[in-house]
């Protein structure tokens, strides 16, 4: 609801100086008090029998949900729909586009496909993803559904999609036009004929690259459920990556706490790495550190959830902030090896940081986190240890 209390008040009897004004029948002392509560959705318009039709209409319209939510699945369920906006920056998208793969038991090799679908699992920025739904076709035996239940997978049959608007993609251009029209009708007009979530069905396509492009368009522009006949790991993992981007809440960048994180039984011989508290940045780095299998600390600066260079530009990653963070956690006491590795992109800060942290030597790491493995192998501390 976008009406302010004052705007609501203007419709009520007291504002129009009508005799019923401030009659208290609604249970509030004045029309204004009622208006203020109403604007916050803390009371109901029906309580005032003098409210004009016009205002009632506005409220009815406002109460309507643009898009319905639908729960799919049997034992395990996936929620789709419920979107309120056309653009993610307007607010945020809510329920991630679900990704379903068809498993047709009448086809040869379905058991192999079953294995691949159920084994699929990726982790990005600390979130783990699997295929959301298995779309079962053919003469499905209870053993199969039982197995899916046990493995924690949601599944659907054709009939489960009755509350979902279905589009079969023939031409991506037309598909997107239809999807856009549906979402506009739902969000801008709250037209109930278009309020069901929408699914796009992709038939088998030899050309996985084209399929990738079509699916990416559909994910950005208004599909609540994407169903693939094909199963391709690269395609699904790439699409999930896109989904993670598009469905991030634009109002709050994912952050981690600014503190010192320990890895692989960090001890006094640990390597020390420095980065910002942007979740994307932190996990890019921590994933690498974890797989180094070497004791390590990551010092995370309080940088308002900004990437390395963004934080630097916004002066949220200064030598002072770095020094403060390192000192606050008394790192100098914890380690013998007094070297701190900073992101390669901030190599120009080496001297500044050394000045601010005289106890430490500052090493400039690589520009990309995934090159950390090779970088660490080249470090003398590491070499010494191997020699031991």
């Amino acid at each position, binding site marked *: *609801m*976008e*009406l302010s209390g004052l*705007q609501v008040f*203007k419709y009520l009897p007291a504002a129009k100086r009508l005799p019923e004004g401030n009659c208290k029948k609604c249970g509030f002392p004045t029309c204004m008090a009622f208006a203020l509560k109403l604007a916050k959705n803390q009371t109901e318009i029906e309580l005032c029998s003098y409210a004009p039709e016009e205002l009632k209409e*506005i409220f009815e*319209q*406002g109460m309507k949900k643009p898009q319905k939510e639908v729960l799919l699945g049997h034992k395990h369920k996936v929620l789709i729909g419920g979107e309120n906006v*056309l*653009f*993610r*920056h*307007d607010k945020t998208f809510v329920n991630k586009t679900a990704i379903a793969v068809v498993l047709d038991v009448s086809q040869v090799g379905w058991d192999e496909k079953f294995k691949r679908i159920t*084994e*699929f*699992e*990726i982790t*990005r920025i600390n979130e783990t993803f699997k295929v959301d739904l298995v779309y079962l076709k053919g003469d499905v035996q209870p053993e199969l559904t039982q197995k899916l239940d046990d493995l924690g997978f949601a599944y659907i049959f054709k009939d489960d999609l009755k509350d979902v608007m279905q589009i079969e993609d023939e*031409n*991506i*251009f*037309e598909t*997107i*036009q239809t999807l*856009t029209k549906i979402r506009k009708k739902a*969000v*801008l*007009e*709250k037209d109930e004929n278009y309020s069901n979530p929408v699914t796009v069905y992709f038939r088998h396509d030899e*050309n*996985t*690259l*084209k399929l*990738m*492009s*079509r699916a*990416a*368009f559909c994910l*950005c*522009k208004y599909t609540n459920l994407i169903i693939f006949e094909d199963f*391709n*790991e*690269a*395609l699904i*993992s*790439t*699409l999930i*990556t*896109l989904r*993670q*981007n*598009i469905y*991030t809440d*634009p109002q709050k960048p994912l952050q981690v706490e600014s503190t010192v994180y320990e890895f692989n039984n960090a001890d006094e011989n640990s390597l020390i790495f420095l980065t910002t508290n942007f979740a*994307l940045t932190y996990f*890019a780095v921590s994933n690498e550190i974890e797989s180094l299998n070497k004791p390590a600390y990551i010092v995370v600066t309080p940088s308002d959830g900004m990437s390395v260079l963004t934080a630097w*530009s916004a002066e949220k990653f200064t030598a002072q902030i770095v020094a403060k963070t390192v000192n606050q956690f008394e790192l100098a006491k914890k380690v013998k090896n007094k070297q701190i590795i900073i992101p390669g992109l901030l190599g120009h800060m080496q001297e500044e940081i050394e000045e601010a942290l005289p106890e430490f030597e500052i090493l400039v790491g690589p520009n*990309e*986190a*995934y090159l950390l493995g090779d970088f660490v192998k080249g470090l003398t501390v590491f070499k010494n240890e191997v020699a031991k």
Partner: protein
Amino acid sequence: MKKNLLYLWIKLKMTEVIKVNQPIREINFEGLKIGGENDFLGSKPVFALELNIFDFSASSHIVKDYFNPQGNQLLPAETINLISVAQETPCDILALKFNIPEEDLEKNIAEAKKLLKTLLPHIKKPLLIRGVNNKSVDIKLLPELMEVLDREVIIAFATENTYKEIVPAVIKGGHILAIRTPIDINLAKEMNILTSDMGLSLDKILIDTDMGGLGYGLEYGYSIMERIKLAAFEGDRMLNMPLIAFAGEEALKVKEAKSDTFSKSFGDFKERSIMFEITTASAVIAAGANLIVLEHPQSIEAIRSEWESKR
């Protein structure tokens, strides 16, 4: 009367009606139409294929596989060959990135100039020329390269820090200029005003919002593109230039597209790398990008055949 107006205003606010009425400027460039749409996905995206022409070895593994499967050291004479292969692919524009190192700047600029001169007669497709996105290089390199040009090209790109040096040469040569701002709608607008004050025609500007690659900040660029488009459709004449997106470069520098140390669920490395480029590109097209610069010919082919089938 007053009451009606208020009612209308409230209704407007409530339903967030989007007045999609003003079209994006249409740039006519060597027979290509860039922009001109009055709704998202309303005009055909234009594709440029970008080559690291000065130092091809800096290219992504999938690009090397395509153009130089043997992995030979390319001799300067062979760059002509590279260009002819590139021109056979279904790109609209050939983009040449003069990725010269910062050391020995004078010498390298002279070499880049010589290279461009040699290549020009062999270039049949519309051309985009690109610097290295380093202030001290671009302010010298780009104006020098423009001296050699014998046709209208797209120059990429000027920034807040380089436009003063670059814009005069662009105006003199009658070129089109991509202007990059760091994911900031106000700065984008400001730069369009500043450069047009210097005499650059508003019909010769491409907005480069800058962007991150898929999985690494893509959503920020994505949303700025959408916001710029919405402002343009609503009539902002300082933001209604077509959008250019260097989607290939950003996509191919992320870990998933560069490293094959991922688990098998991430899929085949080569396929995934191309898919990262395709997906980044498709997303920015959905967000309103008009000219998309990519590095792998198959990416362009995969996306564009979809649009071709319609119009």
